[in-house]
């Protein structure tokens, strides 16, 4: 790790953990605080999608896992009185387990076939949530209480969110810390031999298996990590809006996650973060255009793709070390 990189990380952490919240607090921009929270959470979910891209699969099914994560957490909290802090990893795990079961058969598919099956998965998730009674059917689950206190041996590590003076700030930190952990993990993964192996899958699965890579194992693992991210993001989202419905994460959202990855750049581990930030904020800023918001947004999107088809981060391509 070069000094420059460490410096970059330090600056990033400083910005995300101190600068942004302080500026937003000072200027009293509550709305941007929650936009920033959404961006952080969406980038976690998109990071999962990005990882499946990294093993060469177009994933339009992340909404299903965000939904599953949201429901698992909501059900545990509302029906079983489980603490949010425990429900969060459990939501992620539930998604990972589900993704293994689903992934084993469907990860054999490639290209558009995989893309379409995952797209269908989003819809299956929605319809399933609607049909089951555990999930509250079409009425969803509402009135999810905010996260309680997290204590270890009487020591309060995280205060009760309900008593927070600034709930938004609480969620902001929660989301950003999760995002930092997520991307640190992703970065480590991609720059370890594991990432190397994922890349080998992306480029040629047959060759990878001929050099002894357990392709099935690896892609299921990647998919499980991906879904874990989706579940975590979904669970926090559900907690923030205190409700979850079958169509909280519709197909449109699944497509969005994919777009975030594309726009940021599929070859760059921080691509999904940048892509999410740009697209999400972009939409937000175009809010002033009223009914022309979508028109201008999509036009800009098309122009961006036209000139940077390999993602925003590809701008730095020449001078940068490949991830």
């Amino acid at each position, binding site marked *: 790790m070069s000094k420059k990189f460490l410096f970059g990380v330090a600056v990033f952490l400083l910005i995300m953990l101190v600068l942004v919240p302080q500026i937003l607090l000072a200027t009293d921009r509550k709305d941007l605080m929650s936009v920033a929270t959404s961006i952080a959470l969406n980038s976690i979910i998109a990071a999962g999608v990005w990882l499946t891209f990294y093993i060469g699969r177009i994933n339009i099914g992340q909404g299903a896992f965000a939904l599953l994560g949201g429901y698992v957490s909501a059900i545990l909290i509302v029906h079983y009185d489980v603490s949010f802090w425990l429900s969060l990893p459990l939501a992620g795990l539930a998604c990972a387990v589900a993704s293994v079961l689903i992934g084993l058969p469907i990860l054999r598919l*490639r290209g558009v076939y*995989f893309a379409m099956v995952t797209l269908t998965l989003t819809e299956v998730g929605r319809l399933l949530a609607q049909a089951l009674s555990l999930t509250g059917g079409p009425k969803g689950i509402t009135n999810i209480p905010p996260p309680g206190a997290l204590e270890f041996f009487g020591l309060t590590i995280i205060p009760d969110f309900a008593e927070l003076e600034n709930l938004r700030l609480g969620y902001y930190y929660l989301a950003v810390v999760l995002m930092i952990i997520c991307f640190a993990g992703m970065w480590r993964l991609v720059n370890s031999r594991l990432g190397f192996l994922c890349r080998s899958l992306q480029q040629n699965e047959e060759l990878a298996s001929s050099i002894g890579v357990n392709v099935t194992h690896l892609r299921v693992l990647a998919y499980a990590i991906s879904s874990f991210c989706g579940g975590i993001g979904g669970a926090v989202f559900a907690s923030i809006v205190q409700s979850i419905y079958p169509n909280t994460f519709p197909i449109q959202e699944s497509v969005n996650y994919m777009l975030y990855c594309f726009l940021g750049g599929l070859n760059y581990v921080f691509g999904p973060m940048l892509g999410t930030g740009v697209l999400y904020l972009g939409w937000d800023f175009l809010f002033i255009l009223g009914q*022309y918001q979508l*028109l201008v947004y*999509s036009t800009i999107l*098309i122009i961006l793709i*036209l000139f940077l088809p390999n993602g925003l981060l590809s701008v730095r391509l020449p001078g940068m070390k490949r991830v």
Partner: protein
Amino acid sequence: MEQIIFNGLFLGAQYALIALGLTLIFALMNVLNFAHGQMYVLGGYMTYLVYGHLGLPFYLGLLASAVTLLIVGALIEKFLFRPVIRKSVREESTMLLAAGLAFFFDAVLLLLFGQKQHGVPKIMDGIFKIKTETIRLIVPNDRIAIIVLAVVLIVAFILFMQYSKPGRAMRALAQDRMAAQLMGVSVERYGMLGFALGAMLAGVVGGLLVAITGVSSGIGGPISIKAFLMVMIGGAGVVPGAIAGGFILGMLESVGLTTLRDYGDITYLVIFAALMIFLSIRPNGLMGKPWG
């Protein structure tokens, strides 16, 4: 039962038509055109304008839809898809472009035509009825006219692809890009033609179906997704596959809606879950070529 089978066939013919254009574009350029549904909607509006609004004959409406989409498709291919395909490292980047286009069309359609659903006068009055002890079938005449037109279109398209020079060139291109290029098929020209044709098909279908189901600016996205499903069932990039996929989905819906209704609202859950299982077993659909 007869009614259910006819409904399934009718739905299937519509679906098959919608899927044709999508699969053509996919076969030629490996582009999953997310904006297909929006092109369908644009076609629907063109017919609505010419036939419903201006009161000109229906076939002129269809012609307007066809021409508009042909031009739009060609322009999109030349100025958007071609440069992106040339510059992108990973083929999937075109999906982003297609999705951006879908948003763009959605926005434009909404601004130009409003959020309201529009319909046109029936192209034909009267109802065809068979009612005996064993058979009970009621079909409005305009539906029959539409299904006949649909079948004619499908057949014409197949004949065109099979026997015309451009059709053969495009098939060669779809089968083996490299070999086709070596044989002197211009990828640029036929890629553009294929894209334009695919868009045109979407438009014509939109125009055709506006007579039955109307048109509304927000329906493009869902239609694209439905078309994807059919294409997957039959196998991506294969024309007979798309037709088969369309009919299968139509029949599944029609039969499922009748037989599964006693178990609650699970028809579509069952269909989608079955589709996932089917594709896991047959990763390339019924007759698709592997891709990826």
